[in-house]
């Protein structure tokens, strides 16, 4: 339990997971917000990564065991930047330790895990926020504002297409993603491409699209049909997904995500919101190159920054989180939205697997999927489940 909650003083933060998104976005944002945030410690199972990040971003402590970070009484909140199959376990541990949690998207690997996170944080009286960073990106905020102002009338159809060049991550030297629990620090395949840890495009990026579509439509999804594909013969999870979604208010949503485009292809994003009276469209056709710039520590290509406004979005997301804690108020993005986006993404995964339209009220399939079974094997490999959750009993 932390010895104080940071009202009036700086919020003391620990970062769990010092990989791509932590080093590329969260840690630089913490640094930029140092007037109101203090980075106390970084934890990562890769000792070198934890140490390097701590040194670079000015944390006094680096751990390989997250438990040690959570045991510190001078930490008020944690930012969880590990892969999604660890989000529930680590959030529950953080809540039990009395830490507020800002956790990366996707919220968890299953809806049951997401519910456990909501429940645990509520019971522990700590804030939980999920890093659906696009909600904090100016261009999406402008779109939502246009909808709210009534510029385009009632929203009837939302399309969200996203394409990524294959080398967006992998071309980066020493990419953290090659880490995997059973790779022994080696780099067999990135965890993102292994069925044991990832669902592929559905949770890597389509969960963003699902969240944005829900946000713009302003209603709950009723059903989804999806087709997915593994186009990379070496990968175990789909790098392509396309889905059609029906919403309770009669609107439709549609998304297509392709993650294996040529290395030089610009990160591409198309957002179209059709209302009864008009249309909002955002397209990134002009980003023709994949230049890498690194002035403040970001390792993302410049066009990624242009597209998603990474520095601005992560900063404003973090500020919102910190302000909510300081003011003892609600976080700016209710984690229930992240839970719903996850449910929709997982329903799309199920639809593509079972070849049928999946209704959201069917509930989650038994989590005894191959991926869940493998995860169980990993998190409970020593026969214990330290936080009493893991992925068991979902």
């Amino acid at each position, binding site marked *: 339990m932390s010895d104080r909650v940071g009202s009036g003083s700086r919020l003391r933060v620990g970062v769990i997971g010092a990989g791509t998104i932590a080093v590329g976005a969260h840690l630089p944002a913490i640094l930029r917000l140092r007037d109101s945030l203090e980075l106390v410690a970084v934890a990562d199972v890769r000792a070198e990564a934890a140490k390097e990040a701590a040194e670079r971003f000015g944390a006094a402590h680096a751990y390989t065991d997250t438990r040690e970070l959570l045991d510190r009484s001078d930490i008020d909140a944690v930012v969880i930047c590990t892969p999604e199959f660890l989000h529930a376990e680590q959030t529950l541990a953080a809540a039990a330790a009395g830490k507020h949690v800002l956790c990366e998207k996707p919220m968890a690997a299953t809806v049951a895990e997401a519910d456990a996170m909501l429940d645990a944080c509520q019971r522990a009286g700590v804030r939980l926020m999920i890093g659906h960073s696009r909600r904090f990106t100016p261009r999406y905020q402008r779109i939502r504002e246009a909808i709210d102002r009534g510029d385009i009338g009632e929203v*009837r159809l939302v399309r969200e297409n996203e394409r990524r060049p294959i080398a967006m991550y992998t071309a980066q030297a020493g990419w953290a993603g090659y880490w995997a629990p059973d790779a022994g620090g080696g780099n067999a395949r990135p965890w993102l491409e292994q069925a044991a840890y990832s669902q592929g495009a559905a949770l890597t990026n389509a969960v963003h699209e699902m969240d944005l579509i829900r946000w713009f439509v302003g209603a709950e999804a009723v*059903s989804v049909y999806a087709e997915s594909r593994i*186009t990379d013969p070496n990968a175990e999870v789909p790098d392509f997904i396309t889905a059609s979604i029906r919403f309770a208010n009669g609107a*439709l949503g549609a998304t297509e995500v392709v993650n294996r485009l040529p290395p030089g292809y610009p990160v591409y994003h198309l957002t179209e919101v059709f209302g009864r009276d*008009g249309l909002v469209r955002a397209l990134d056709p002009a980003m023709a190159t994949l230049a890498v710039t690194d002035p403040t520590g970001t390792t993302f290509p410049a066009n990624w920054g242009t597209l998603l406004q990474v520095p601005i979005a992560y900063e404003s997301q973090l500020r919102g989180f910190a302000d909510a804690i300081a003011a003892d108020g609600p976080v700016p993005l209710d984690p229930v939205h992240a839970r719903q986006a996850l449910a929709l993404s997982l329903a799309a995964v199920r639809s593509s697997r079972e070849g049928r339209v999946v209704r959201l009220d069917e509930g989650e399939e038994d989590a005894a999927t191959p991926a869940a079974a493998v995860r169980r094997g990993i998190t409970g490999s020593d026969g214990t489940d330290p936080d009493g959750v893991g992925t068991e009993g979902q």
Partner: protein
Amino acid sequence: MNASRPNPNNEESHSSLSLAVVGLDGTGEAFARAGMLHPAFRLVTVADPRPERGAAVANRLGVPFAPAYLDVLNDPTLDGLIVAGDMADRATILAEAAVRGRAVLATSPPAGTLTRLDDLILTASEGGARVACPNPWRVVPATALAARQLREPGIGQLLAVFAAHRTKQAMGDPLVELGLPLLDYLVGALRAEVVQVQATAETLFATDGPGEPDTWLLLLRFRTGLIATVELGRSLPAAFPTDSELRVEFAGSERVVVADAENLGVTTYAGDGSVRRNASGPDAHRALLDGFLPAVRDAQAPEESLVTLRWVMPLIEAARRSAAEGTPVSLTRR
């Protein structure tokens, strides 16, 4: 524009083939304009089942207007007919032209169901008509170029296809009106067989009562495993930036080809990060008339006839069934 007006006294025009356009929607008018400019054709008259609309277009173009369109279909001095107009009109005019054994260029789609299409095929064959029904997307510069680029080496493994055709027009069922030519084009360009379709149809924008859906979302699975995402929409809000928009994207592992028919351009994203934009080509209606020429002048069977389109009807009908039943529908090889 005077020079392009039909001029019976023009010597050159004596040697050209006489043409009439029946059915004066936007496409009919565009064909009439192209016919006026085409060196091999002489636009003699235009007609429409709805005389007021026909008269207005004729006036705009400065060509003679025939108040009774059946007179045009019966006129033995005409070498060729172009049949356009709204779906319902078009099918009727087409049947009447077919039964008279004329050389007809029918705008796509010629019919909304397989039964109606087969009726037309039978009528045309019994009447001895030569009915060309070319797919415009095969000649519109952007889509034609995109299809050619698909065949060039260098696109790599095809990862995904996305196509959207949307319009402000309040037309009939967009699955047929927009979908039939687009699906025919996609399958032709990809040279692959569709094995399954899943369709979501909804009336999202149209305010003309609970008619046919105005929006279709189709997910097509090809035998190769490729998935195409297709969106079709009519009756878009008046504020929609263009009258009609078509975007086709072929995403390959080495190259991405994007055809934007509105701007008549193709953008190619290559693996080395280079982006190439191609200039637009010749007018599509002109190209369609070029293709129609042998059928009129030499009485040849048209390359793309009603029969050519027959294959796509089962796909359209599978999409309808999928939307009605809420399940994907597989298409088995006959």
